[in-house]
């Protein structure tokens, strides 16, 4: 069962990260995105498909064109996933600092 794509796997690829950066500033068509890369067009399409499946990108029809734009909510989720880990260490280090300050004033 690996039908649902893993978001973290999705952003592990440098091309896909570059696509996200590109689309972050403005919505673009697949063609416009592909023109920024040396990679073959079908490869870029595949990347777009994966990013869309992970809901990092959303498609919007505008006339005859499909524009890709970034799903800010999902992106925030990704950015936040390391935060609890950082927070855990931050809390631990804060405790260390407090304990050692007390220790220092005792001696």
């Amino acid at each position, binding site marked *: 069962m690996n039908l649902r794509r893993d978001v*973290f796997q999705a*952003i*592990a690829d440098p091309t896909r*990260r570059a696509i996200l950066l590109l689309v972050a500033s403005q919505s673009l068509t697949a063609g416009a995105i592909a023109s920024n890369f040396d990679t073959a067009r079908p490869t870029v399409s595949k990347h777009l498909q994966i990013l869309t499946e992970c809901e990092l990108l959303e498609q919007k029809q505008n006339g005859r064109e499909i524009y890709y734009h970034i799903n800010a909510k999902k992106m925030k989720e990704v950015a*936040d*996933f*390391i*935060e*609890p*880990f*950082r*927070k*855990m*260490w*931050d809390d*631990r*280090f804060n*405790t*260390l*600092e407090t*304990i*050692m*300050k007390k*220790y*220092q004033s005792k001696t």
Partner: protein
Amino acid sequence: MEQKTKIGAEDGKQELVITREFDLPLELLFKAYAEPGIVEQWMGTKVLKLESKKHGSYQLETTDAKGNVVFKANGVIHEFVPNRKITRTFEMDNAPFGVQLEVYEFEQLTDDTSKLNMHVIYESVAQRDQLLKLPFAQGLNVAHNRLEDIVSKLK
């Protein structure tokens, strides 16, 4: 505001770097890592054994209120240079995370401030990522449990 604790975790790499600046003289920061009684206090776990020397080893254990072991870890110390560096392994018992290699570097910034650079190397990228997500996943579980509590009270 700049964060005091920073995590560097590049995609696709089996390592991570944790850095932190302390409002403590270098000697005190190092002591917090070398003395079992102090480690116990800030890590919130029992220290069954900690031999702070080259080729020494350590064992940590946490029990819940009922006395059940909820966390157990151990490792060996490969290098121990006072006020400078500790190189050790870390392995959690009954967990799928393998053994990690930890390199701690302690640095004096001023007379009253110091910096810790913690470099952790995992057996694989997958193991590192899994561990990184652990507090995230636990946070979700806590939220779910709370939700379940609330919902069950509504019934």
